[in-house]
């Protein structure tokens, strides 16, 4: 195992604040790999034992999801090995793809074209560049203050006032969720935590693992024991059993991973609880948006999962809060 740890550790140069011989990070990846193999085996067993047609279609979807997880994990691991640049480019692309799925559902008009061009090709790259150059002050206010004012101005210039406020607000909301909130995940790389220098990539991986696993665990608990729907009018698949079981097990998982973070086990449990709760909030809000727009998924990019935004909705909500909790409590 040591040769593997050495190889992984040496790929990234030190100044990219990434794992220079970071065995914990490697172990985290090994853990993810183990979980994927386990899930694949379970999927194969379930496929053999499925009896009814309904069960078979559920298992088929489950296996499609697991196949997609392999791909997603591979892409994510690869970009992390490249270093900070890799993570920034990956999240910038995710922002663009999520924003595209979101705006596609929104009834924007001819007059919004230039505003959208600015959002896709200027505001998005700029936000990730600000993380790259570690300009925290501008990173934190560029979108909520400046882009917020720019968008209605640019739309007003076109002279099309029909549904003006609605159009402005919809674009602002999309940028806040798909771009601003999501960019807080790679922004973890620029925090300076004493005694944790050069280890920030672990925090990013920790956030992604806990947020995504809380989704998976909510799904599993919901499929196994789900009876009582939380808000049936928003999403028929979200049940109290899935929610409680998922949040508790995700919290336990996050606490068990305390050794990769600067947190104590108890602190790690608290952080994971917040990530899991906000993940649930994100799933609920994005479901409400989809329901309002009359669609089931934001897209069909990821087999079995729907669109990119369906996969990262929980991350979008958890990232800013996790970032600011870490920054408030652990950055002097």
């Amino acid at each position, binding site marked *: 195992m040591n040769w593997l740890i050495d190889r992984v550790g040496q790929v990234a140069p030190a100044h990219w604040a990434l794992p220079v011989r970071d065995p914990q990070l490697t172990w985290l990846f090994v853990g993810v790999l183990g979980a994927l193999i386990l899930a694949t085996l379970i999927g194969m067993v379930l496929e053999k034992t499925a009896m009814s047609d309904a069960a078979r279609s559920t298992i088929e979807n489950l296996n499609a999801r697991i196949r997609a997880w392999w791909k997603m994990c591979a892409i994510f691991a690869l970009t992390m090995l490249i270093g900070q640049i890799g993570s920034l480019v990956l999240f910038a692309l995710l922002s*663009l793809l999520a924003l*595209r799925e979101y705006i*596609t559902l929104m009834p*924007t008009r*001819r007059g919004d*074209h230039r505003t*959208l*061009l600015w959002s896709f090709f200027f505001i998005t790259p700029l936000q990730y560049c600000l993380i790259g150059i570690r300009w925290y002050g501008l990173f934190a206010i560029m979108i909520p203050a400046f882009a917020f004012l720019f968008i209605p101005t640019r739309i007003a210039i076109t002279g099309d006032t029909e549904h003006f406020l609605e159009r402005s607000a919809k674009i602002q909301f999309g940028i806040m969720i798909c771009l601003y909130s999501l960019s807080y995940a790679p922004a973890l790389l620029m925090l300076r935590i004493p005694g944790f220098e050069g280890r920030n990539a672990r925090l990013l991986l920790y956030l992604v693992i806990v947020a995504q696993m809380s989704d998976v665990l909510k799904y599993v608990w919901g499929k196994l024991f789900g009876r009582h729907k939380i808000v049936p009018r928003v999403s028929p698949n979200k049940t109290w059993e899935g929610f409680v079981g998922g949040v508790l097990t995700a919290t336990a998982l996050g606490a068990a991973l305390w050794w990769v973070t600067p947190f104590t086990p108890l602190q790690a449990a608290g952080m994971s609880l917040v990530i899991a709760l906000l993940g649930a909030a994100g799933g609920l809000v994005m479901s409400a948006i989809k329901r309002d727009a009359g669609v089931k998924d934001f*897209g069909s990019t990821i087999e079995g999962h729907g669109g990119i935004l369906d996969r990262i909705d929980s991350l979008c909500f958890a990232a800013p809060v996790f970032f600011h909790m870490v920054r408030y409590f652990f950055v002097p």
Partner: protein
Amino acid sequence: MSVKAHPLAMMIAALARGVSGVRVRWEGCCPDPKQRIYFANHTSHLDFVVLWSSLPAEIRARTRPVAAKDYWQSGVRAYLAQKVFRGVLVQRGATHATGSKHPLADARAVIEQLAEAMGETESLIFFPEGTRGAGDSIAPFRSGLYYLAKRRPEIELVPVYIENLNRILPKGEVVPVPLVCLLTFGAPMQVGEAEHKQIFLERAHAALCDLHRKG
């Protein structure tokens, strides 16, 4: 006659699919390399590029878009249209009086040109509205589709509804916003032996509008 795909064709098709994020639904028929005429609503210069790109490669290699000569006849556009897309460039609005002294003769010449371009193997992508609309509604069809169908009555006409491309690249804009566009292929239709021109055009128009409503 089999033509080898231009080396750029694969790349441009992949690029067009990426920019337009196109989702394709074959509702009324399946992809088939047999000769067909795909007719679609026209809202953006990207229309035929995206439709052409979303066809499976072996069908794409035998499908020729019909494009307006005035837009695609010069410079890079001409090269792309003729060499890469193997487009059939026609005089726009030939079936209407365009100041020509012999509108009917011109129209016949265009239909002959299209029929000849199809030969025995090629399919066509055709925009029966003739010009780009705002994307809100589909304009009444011009007569071209009818005369083309009459000229080759054995060939299937497949309606294709293109959604959202007008938002990706609206009229008058140069840079596309990379939203997701949706293509829906409807059920094939044919012109009836004694079918009146207006009735056929309305039937084809309705077939395309139906795909829109189902969307």
